[in-house]
């Protein structure tokens, strides 16, 4: 430390590069690692129908710098496009919509490459999929012809490519993410306040020794030192006293904890000029939140209990580390320490010492897990940085689509029926619980028109899409649903739009889909599982697993 103070050489400066400046506001969310993932992504949009929601989604991906995109769209630009799609103008009339969209979207960011289909060389989706470098994610908008959908689904299964289906009409929309298997996320970005893990009920020797040293003569400390004891140290000190008076047991019940809090509050000095001590206030405030025994969060429990159906998946870095963490948990009855110390009133030097005690323990735990990983076949290839990240986030690691690999024997049709039964039953009690009604009727009404391709003619009035036709399609999928009032209303609303988009609803949906695409590509934050329905009349969303 002295050395550094003495040194007068100015620190080496790393001003931001041009690119860092351009992407500054998003790098603060997903960092360089997320940006690199985004920049190496190659995405396909199969666009149809009114065609706006796909364009809006792409805009939100091109701006932050997705690597490259391709648009497949068989439509020619017509008048109706110009009233709803911002990435088309009068000069585009009559041209292939894929070409015009690509030209006006790629212009948003010179770092991004875009291409359009069908063209002279590539005339069908089939040949596009066969001839292109691997797609990272494929998005398609409804309505879509069933044979094209099948081609995309087949590709998705073969190449383990996530598919995102999007449907926007009038005030309604939904989108659905079809992941090729279980999708684990380590970097879930939990709320800062949720991540404090101080292990006050299971302190390790170095921490105990540090607290004891600072508090061995706690009453003899001068006011400055007493008023600057870190709250972690204060709590550890009075916990020892409590244990001594309670047969070696920590305060466990709510009553005991509030009693303990009283002890801490009473230990604060009030005969000083401030009439109290901030650090003791912090300590008292932390009692209920931090005096908790280690437990296994549900997300991690699901991971520990997960049964693999795919041996290749089992050998991936994530699962090797997850198995090692599970072993660690079985041995120690706790997770690896994340090692982050929240700010608290303390002298700089004392705080930094305490911080390094937490960091050292976190490093030790991570090293133990790395050792377990490396002792496993295939584990020698695992990046230690990946282990560190897992250990820091262990309590918040999440598995999406956990049953995706196995549960597929239950057909989509049956899943929809059981979801409908559940949602309609909930609606019966919704009024009592003051919860808003289910948005499943919107999904049912929209997807009844999912393959209604003949209305994608821009100048059609869509009059063949009647509420009656929509309800009769719903009746074949979820018998009885067609009689529910909310379903009848939703069908009426979808018929009103007659396959036409409202720009706002397309833009809003395109924003949500882009957020989800970013989460899937960067493997950060937590994507939906698996369908999000939007109601532009009530202004709200609902996520359903369908």
């Amino acid at each position, binding site marked *: 430390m002295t050395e550094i103070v003495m040194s007068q050489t100015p620190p080496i400066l790393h001003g931001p590069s041009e690119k*860092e400046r351009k992407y500054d506001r998003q790098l603060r969310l997903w960092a360089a690692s997320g940006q690199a993932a985004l920049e190496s992504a190659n995405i396909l949009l199969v666009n149809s129908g009114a065609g706006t929601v796909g364009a809006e989604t792409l805009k939100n991906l091109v701006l932050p710098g997705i690597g490259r995109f391709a648009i497949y769209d068989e439509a020619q630009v017509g008048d109706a496009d110009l009233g709803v799609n*911002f990435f088309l103008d009068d000069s585009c009339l009559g041209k292939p919509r894929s070409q015009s969209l690509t030209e006006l979207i790629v212009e948003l960011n010179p770092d991004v490459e875009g291409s359009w289909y069908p063209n002279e060389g590539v005339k069908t989706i089939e040949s596009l999929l066969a001839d292109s470098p691997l797609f990272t994610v494929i998005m398609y908008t409804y309505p879509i012809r069933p044979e094209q959908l099948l081609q995309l689904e087949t590709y998705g299964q073969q190449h383990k490519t996530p598919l995102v289906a999007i449907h926007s009409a009038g005030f309604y929309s939904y989108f659905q993410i079809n992941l090729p298997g279980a999708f684990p996320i380590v970097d879930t970005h939990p709320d800062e306040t949720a991540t404090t893990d101080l292990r006050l009920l299971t302190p390790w020797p170095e921490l105990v020794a540090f607290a004891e040293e600072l508090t061995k003569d706690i009453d003899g400390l001068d006011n400055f030192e007493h008023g600057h004891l870190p709250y972690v140290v204060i709590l550890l000190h009075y916990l020892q006293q409590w244990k001594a008076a309670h047969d070696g047991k920590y305060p466990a019940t709510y009553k005991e904890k509030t009693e303990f809090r009283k002890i801490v509050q009473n230990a604060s000095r009030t005969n000083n000029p401030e009439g109290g001590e901030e650090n003791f206030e912090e300590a008292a405030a932390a009692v209920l939140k931090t005096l908790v025994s280690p437990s296994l969060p549900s997300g991690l429990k699901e991971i520990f209990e997960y049964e693999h159906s795919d041996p290749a998946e089992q050998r991936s870095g994530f699962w090797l580390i997850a198995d090692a963490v599970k072993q660690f948990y079985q041995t120690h009855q706790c997770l690896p320490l994340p090692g982050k110390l929240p700010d608290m009133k303390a002298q700089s030097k004392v705080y930094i010492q305490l911080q390094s005690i937490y960091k050292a323990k976190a490093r030790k735990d991570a090293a133990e897990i790395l050792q377990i990983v490396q002792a496993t076949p295939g584990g020698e290839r695992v990046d230690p940085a990946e282990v560190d990240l897992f250990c820091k986030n262990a309590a918040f690691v999440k598995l999406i689509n956990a049953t995706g690999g196995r549960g597929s024997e239950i057909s989509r049709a049956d899943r929809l029926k059981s979801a409908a039964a559940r949602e309609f039953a909930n609606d019966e009690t919704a009024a009592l619980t003051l919860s808003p009604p289910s948005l499943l009727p919107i999904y049912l009404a929209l997807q009844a028109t999912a393959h209604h391709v003949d209305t994608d003619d821009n100048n059609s009035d869509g009059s063949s899409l009647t509420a009656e036709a929509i309800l009769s399609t719903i009746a074949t999928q979820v018998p009885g649903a067609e009689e529910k009032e909310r379903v009848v209303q939703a069908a009426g609303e979808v018929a009103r739009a007659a396959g036409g988009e409202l720009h706002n609803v397309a833009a*809003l949906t395109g924003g949500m889909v882009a957020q989800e695409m970013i989460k899937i590509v960067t493997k950060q934050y937590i994507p939906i599982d698996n369908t999000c329905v939007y109601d532009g009349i009530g*202004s709200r969303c609902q996520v359903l697993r369908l």
Partner: protein
Amino acid sequence: MASSEVHPGSEPSRWAYLDRVRTRPGPFTNPDMFNAEGVVAAMEKMKVLVIGAGGLGCELLKNLALSGFKNIHVIDMDTIDISNLNRQFLFRQADVGSSKAEVAARFVEKRVKGVKITPHNNKIQDFDEDFYMQFQLVVCGLDSIEARRWINATLVNMVDEDVEDSYKPLIDGGTEGFKGQARVIIPTVTSCIECQLDMHAPRAAVPLCTLASIPRQPEHCIEWAHVIAWDQEKPFPQLDKDDPEHITWLYQKALLRAREFNIPGVTYSLTQGVVKNIIPAIAATNSVIAAACCNEALKIASNCAPFLGLPDDNYMMYSGNDSIYTYTFRHEKKDDCPVCGQLARDLPVDPAWTLRELVDSFAARPEAQLKKPSVRGEGKTLYMQSPASLEAQTRPNLDKTLAELGLEDGQEIGVTDPAFATVVFKFRLRFKQ
């Protein structure tokens, strides 16, 4: 219902999708408020004001132009910076340094035929009530609470119960990272931005003594450089937070201090983030929130579907961090709201406080957030920030306690702040025992 007739305007094929929805009633349309034949003409006549041409503002202009509004004004005093280009999609590299309002207006006018957008390269405070009175709707995409409070107070003040056109619905959006909110305010009718102020509590300030003597976090070192070192050394006449040279100076100072105390984590990016109070922002979230706002604008203007504001919900919260979650609810109007309520708000105080402590406390109170408050008691001026002569005259009061100043439990005080010229924040003193 879907078979009812479409009532198009002048370019029926171009606006076919929009007209199907806005000129035909749906199952949720209120027939008493809906006039199918008149919708298009009414919307084309409306004047809409957009405040802010940044991340939300670019989206708002695009969305309103494609929602059938023909006459839009936009106010923004900022110029385009390179860090805007990751989301403010109406701007290109070559536009850096130009006026946001002007470039945005020009771009949307060029892309969407038939829309007129009037840019104002100004502060909102440059305009008076006559200016704001010409609009039928105000849509805000702002990043500052203060500007929101100003326009809110102005619109509430403009309400004349006898004049229907004096009620200007205010639609407000805001984003941070993957989260955001959209809300609709009908001045004096629904809860207003001031009623909702405590939903945006200011970040707790780090105590000065922590900065000065016991830093522990990289942010403490940066704040020290920003608040203390800059003032001591005055390396440049005036701190310009957008000047990389100034940020570099602060970064270097902070880094040296961090090394002295062995504190890891000071970076250029963090320095910039702390000093400028940077809020992360992405195109996708702006797209969601701006569209939610404009969707309400379309519904309010056309009555083709129920909108937020009346009679139930008026606020939509959106979070995309963990799955997608929206919470749409009704925020209740507050009778003691200093802007739209009638009653004085209870203010717990200690009679042993000096007036200075009271004055300083207004900045940190989530429901007040007043940075330069002047205080009047009943019939008595206690402290005035300006003019200078009055400030000098009332300054000695700052060191007196509330009891010494003769203030009593239950007494009402009035607080004003130059940021909200027209508003008197009424508080009722409640002495702590």
